[in-house]
């Protein structure tokens, strides 16, 4: 009896009503695969969100702090591609927000929920540091204590991120010895949360984790897509022909795409292909369904169900799973999935720095590399929007080392 087949999941996919996202016929991603101790916490969170969504005061507070704390709206930058017959490439500048990353809306919404639920603390994990900084900054603004789990940082750039989190008053917990693997930091944060669920909310940096997290993150991040859509309509008269985001957890992607689902826009999620080996961080392309951190979704795993040891070049892209809703959109054909190799992303990062004075994070560069590729063959004037998840200062030592 050999059980090494890669297809044919358990046919009766676990399925209850809440937090499920339909993929192919019969496929439902999401769920709440967590220790029973977290279920009451998740149920409370879901109820609080339902209430908050209907509460005009909550919505007004959220909008006010999007402006006064996150620094929204973020700009949209047109990159001239030289050639007169070229496509128009617009970059949605999430790097120019208060904490310098694309996490502002999702973090603000979740922290406001923690406050509404009477909690005094939040906990989060961070790979590149951007999400940790966003959580630390927002917790500071709302008077919450924050604990941030990060893989023991090696380079000086990551140390600068830790310095920032500490300046905001956060406690930074280093998860030792496990390279830059985001999912170990996440496990640390979730363990912390399990031990302090009554007063402490886990704040997700991506639309991953158990229900209701993917829904919360999608809804709170949707401001990215709403702004981008309005900005592009203002500048070109129509929604974009193409929208592109990198799959680094998917917080920016779900935010951008969420507001464009009803348009004719092609939505393209770009996965880091790595160097073809252990660096591939492409769960939508190469994963199969399974459970990680509370969600049934597409995972990079071996035949035994062990997670692949991803060592993606971009520290923010080393999560071996896709968010369940993104997995569903991809399986259902609503979004396209592309892949870009590390070398091409680095070339794109350098190109933008050298020719446009724009230093983007390595995570973002996978999406921009794909956008460049599409722009080269697209019809004249085609409007392509790509979200920049963050700034690249932190990544320069990495890029240097890549040679």
């Amino acid at each position, binding site marked *: 009896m050999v*059980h090494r087949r890669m297809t044919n999941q358990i046919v009766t996919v*676990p399925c209850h009503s809440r937090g499920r996202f339909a993929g192919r016929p019969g496929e439902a991603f999401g769920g709440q695969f*967590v220790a029973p101790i977290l*279920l009451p916490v998740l149920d409370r969170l879901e109820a609080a969100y339902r209430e908050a969504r209907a509460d005009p005061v909550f919505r007004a507070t959220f909008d006010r702090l999007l402006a006064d704390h996150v620094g929204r709206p973020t700009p949209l930058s047109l990159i001239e591609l030289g050639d007169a017959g070229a496509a128009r490439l617009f970059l949605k500048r999430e790097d120019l927000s208060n904490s310098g990353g694309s996490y502002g809306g999702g973090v603000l919404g979740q922290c406001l929920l923690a406050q509404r639920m009477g909690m005094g603390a939040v906990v989060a994990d961070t790979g590149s540091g951007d999400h940790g900084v966003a959580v630390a900054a927002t917790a500071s603004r709302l008077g919450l204590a924050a604990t941030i789990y990060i893989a023991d940082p090696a380079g000086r750039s990551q140390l600068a991120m830790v310095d920032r989190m500490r300046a905001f008053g956060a406690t930074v917990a280093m998860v030792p010895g496990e390279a830059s693997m985001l999912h170990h930091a996440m496990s640390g944060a979730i363990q912390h949360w399990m031990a302090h669920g009554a007063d402490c909310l886990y704040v997700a940096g991506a639309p991953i984790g158990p229900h209701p997290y993917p829904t919360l993150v999608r809804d709170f991040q949707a401001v990215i897509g709403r702004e981008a859509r309005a900005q592009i309509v203002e500048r070109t008269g129509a929604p974009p022909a193409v929208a592109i985001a990198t799959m680094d957890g998917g917080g920016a992607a779900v935010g951008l795409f969420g507001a464009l689902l009803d348009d004719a826009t092609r939505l393209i999620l770009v996965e880091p292909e790595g160097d073809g080996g252990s660096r591939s961080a492409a769960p939508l392309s190469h994963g*199969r369904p399974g459970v990680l*951190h509370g969600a049934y979704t597409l*995972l990079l795993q071996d035949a035994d*169900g062990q997670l692949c040891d991803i060592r993606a070049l971009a520290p923010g892209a080393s999560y071996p799973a896709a968010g369940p809703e993104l997995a569903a959109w991809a399986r259902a054909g609503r979004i396209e999935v592309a892949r870009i190799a590390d070398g091409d992303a680095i070339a794109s990062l350098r190109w933008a720095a050298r020719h446009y004075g724009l230093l983007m994070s390595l995570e973002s560069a996978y999406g921009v590399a794909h956008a460049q590729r599409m722009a080269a063959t697209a019809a004249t004037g085609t409007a392509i929007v790509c979200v920049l998840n963050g700034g690249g200062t932190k990544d320069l030592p990495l890029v240097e080392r890549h040679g």
Partner: protein
Amino acid sequence: MSRRLTRRFVERRQQGRAALIFYLAAGDPSIALAADMLHAVVAGGADIIELGYPFCDPILDGPVIRLANRRALDAGGSLDATLAIVRRFRARDADTPIVLMGYANPLLSRDGAVFAYIADAGADALIIPDLPLREAAALLPAIAAAGLALVPLVSPDGMTDANLAASPGVGGFSYCVAQAGPTGGAAPDTGQVRAAVAMCRALSDRPVAVGFGIKTPALAAEIAAVADGVIVGSALVDRIRAMGDEDVDAAALFAAIADFCRTFRTAIDGRS
């Protein structure tokens, strides 16, 4: 077969003794020694074995068991290897129930025959900490059909999804989690354990076994006085790890492990 598990609790209750349950990771420190390791634990007085199939990200576990999972994986451990160990154990022990413990993904990434395959190897029940009843619901028919039982976990502050606890396929015993943090934590407060056990009894008629943080024979004895079973994990795993640092042959290893388990057996039997 979950009946073997139920029968064992009935026997022990009739004897007025609490069931002693040890957790260890399948393949730690070696696949070759694993079946004999289980026999040694039984020789030391275990009534039931909770056998962990290893996972790379054991999110409910503290550092001791996390590392044991890592060692087991490095030694070639997997769900298949775990079931092969169970088969070898069953060849010489048809009585001691084995509860397979592990995380959802290695099961859910298999096809629908996985539960029959597990039962066929000789395991009796399942503990899957990241498969709460609301998510297990759709799988319970297959679990029940295979003759297995999914052991429900009851948290210190109550049971969510209590409505599903009586479904076919849920059973074996109630796993009363003594504290909120990961495994291997501080010793639980006996008063709180007493309350938690009472709550479990109110929720169902199943035997109640208590785990998490029970690291000494004395504490095990205290808990045994109020529960139907006591589960010891990190303490045994840590002992196995420590023996690995010593240069002993297999026979000496098994003897030491049996001796270690016996200290718990003796303490419990003295009290219960």
